[in-house]
């Protein structure tokens, strides 16, 4: 009996099992948790983290790191608002945001891959540069949206479910496909497993890494636009600390910081666990200050569990 339980918890799908258990437990114990309203709110609250986690997963599994995502989300949101205000076209704003995000990512990737500079340092630098750009562009103030249609990006619904949630789900599906079913995804995992062996096996390591960062930037652009629409303005100080939430969610989902190991289902569960913890604590009126402590503890526990799992799987 205990053995079976152990196998279930420490097995391949252990995290999913724990997630389901936690979800059931929270549903039973926390009043108002399992309501349509709260569920939609829960999903809304994880949209930004979830979207960025899709590409952060690729980045981490290639043994890289991206700290600049928070700044890029804020910057892209600013750009979207300012460009659509200036041109009167929301589409132009959207495209500009995606392009700017991709440009930041491309620069990250290019510097990291071609000049062999540590990803942590490179993105730490761009994180500050991009935040600075956002502040300069707005003179440090929030920029209001002129065209009310811009709000519709976050407010509109399809089959009763808000658009941002659809975007999140679609990105989850695409990222899972990219990771498992494409040459790009497999190359990413191989690079994380052993970069030099991958190069010698004919993988274009530099190009793959640049692509990963460019995609990461572009996805930050999407997250930035949705966030700006939700908070009805371009905020240069938005999404501060986002990088840490995203990396936490990925690690919680079993993505190895040493590279080479990631699953989409894990990342989704990681994102959701973070969201549920916060949501449940809000419903229980636990003050925000305590929530930091709980989040930290959850992360530590998840990593411990992961450790247990790898030693249970055992190397001969």
């Amino acid at each position, binding site marked *: 009996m205990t053995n079976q339980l152990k196998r279930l918890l420490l097995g391949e799908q252990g995290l999913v099992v724990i997630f389901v258990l936690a979800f059931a437990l929270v549903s039973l114990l926390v009043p108002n948790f399992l309501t349509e309203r709260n569920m939609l709110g829960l999903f809304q609250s994880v949209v930004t983290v979830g979207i960025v986690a899709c590409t952060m997963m690729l980045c981490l599994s290639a043994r890289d790191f991206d700290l600049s995502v928070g700044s890029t989300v804020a910057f892209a949101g600013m750009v979207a608002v300012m460009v659509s205000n200036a041109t009167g076209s929301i589409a132009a704003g959207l495209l500009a945001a995606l392009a700017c995000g991709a440009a930041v990512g491309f620069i990250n990737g290019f510097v990291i891959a071609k000049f062999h500079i540590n990803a942590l340092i490179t993105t730490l630098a761009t994180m500050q540069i991009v935040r600075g750009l956002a502040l300069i562009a707005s003179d440090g103030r929030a920029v209001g949206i002129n065209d009310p249609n811009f709000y519709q990006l976050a407010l509109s619904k399809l089959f009763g479910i808000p658009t941002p949630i659809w975007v999140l789900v679609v990105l989850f599906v695409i990222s899972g496909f990219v990771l498992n079913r494409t040459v790009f995804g497999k190359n990413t995992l191989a690079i994380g497993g*052993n970069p030099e062996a991958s190069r*010698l096996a004919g993988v274009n390591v530099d190009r793959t890494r640049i692509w990963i960062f460019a995609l990461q930037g572009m996805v930050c652009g999407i997250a930035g636009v949705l966030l700006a629409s939700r908070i009805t303005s371009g905020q240069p100080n938005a999404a501060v600390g986002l990088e840490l939430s995203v990396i936490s969610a990925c690690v919680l989902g079993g993505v*190895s910081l040493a590279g080479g190991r990631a699953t989409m289902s894990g990342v989704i569960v990681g994102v959701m666990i973070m969201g549920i913890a916060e949501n449940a604590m809000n419903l229980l009126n636990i003050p925000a200050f305590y929530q930091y402590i709980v989040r930290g503890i959850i992360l530590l526990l998840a990593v411990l569990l992961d450790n247990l799992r790898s030693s249970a799987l055992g190397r001969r």
Partner: protein
Amino acid sequence: MKNAARRADGVKPMAFLEFSRITKIYPGVTALADVSFDVAKGAVHGLMGENGAGKSTLIKILSGDLQANEGRITIDGAPQTYASAKGAYNAGVVVIHQELQLVPELTVAENLVLGRFPANAGIISRRRMFVDVEAKLKSAGIDIDPARKIKTLSIGERQMVEIAKAVMLDARVIALDEPTSSLSSRESEILFALIERLRSEGKVILYVSHRLDEVFKLCDSLTVLRDGKLAAHHASLKGVTRDQVVAEMVGREISDIWGYRPRKAGQTRLTVNGLRGEKLLQPVSFEARAGEILGFFGLIGAGRSELMRLVYGADRRLGGSIDIDGKPIDARDPRGSIRAGIVLCSEDRKHDGIVQGRSIEENINISSRRHHSRFGILNRVREIETAEIFIKKLRVRTPSRKQDIANLSGGNQQKVILGRWLSEQGVRVLIVDEPTRGIDVGAKSEIYELLYDLADDGLAIIVVSSELPEVMGICDRVLVMCGGRISAELDRDQFAEKAILAAALPDKKTPDAIASREQTA
């Protein structure tokens, strides 16, 4: 104790280290089943077996890293119950693993007293440390300056430091796991002298190795494991033949490891002209023909691997040309070379070959998937098919294609890497650098067999090897390198150890002295 009856000489020396009925079961696999044998005091005891035979598991149980499910270890009559590496140290057992456990940025002396710094109120007494360490090194006959940093030492010297660590701990039992796998012949000689010395001091040495010559030269007694079971125990090596031990390891007779098959060489396939690189300053030229197995022999540092990396485009080419079937190729990276039909199995499998953490299937398909994927989307059916075909064809021993490649033995990893290239289309030149390093006898002949088949198919095969018998055993022609130049070329009918070695050596050394040494390595 059980094995005492089996002893050939009838004399029963005092058993000092005893393994009795050791059994280790992993979920689904029995790694060791009821293994019992003992070792006398002051003996060097060989432990042999193919990869996966259970040697490493046994050593890990001895070192306290693993716990046996059943059975126990007895040292000097006292049953041991330790369950950690620290417990093993306290019991006087030190295991020196293939991967050395030293801190590169610290000095030899600091590494030797790590964890037991001689200190007053937390302040290290450097003088006392150096005096202690110097005395110990001297008494063990190890000639290394204790003030040097580990990172400045050669691998052989680092191994000496590891052994010195065991001496510092007053170990009673010292186990060495494949100690010579990365040592030069000279360094091995020093190691052997040190082992002799430890033996004369009454230590028990457990010597794990693939190399028959070493075991016969060094060991007093020998245990052979096969498939987790005791295959043979020789309390004395008197009258034991090498063929017998090989048969015990493999479980069948292997008459001729090389199994050389003569074949006709065809047209010139690869022409390398004046190739230069950052690590190979003098231009090098050579040719390889279709259907030919061309050997590259030389001492470590002769520039063989560097040359092959240049041919493969792994390092930047500074000058010279590479032609395949008369057409110049201008590949600037491995990708280009693979597309032009040149592939390389690197010397350092772990660093340059396998992608750890990923499955056998992915490791095989990593390059060849470009032939069957469309718009960057994998063809899952073909990937699985390809993996299954090569696992079967190359006889990779694994429960599943989904197995992490890092969990395979060296020989099976090598087969997977070969499978990676065999699944490519249009390979015309296959370069294998030290194809059988760290691989056991049975898998070796399988790999040679495979190379012959590929040569029959018309590939030009280049084998880089530091093992002279291997080069002479399987190659049609040998090029000898020395100091970054090709110093001799010999056809198979001209093969002679002395001639090849003489060409491999820089002028000063006498070939005869080295010849006898190389033979034993």
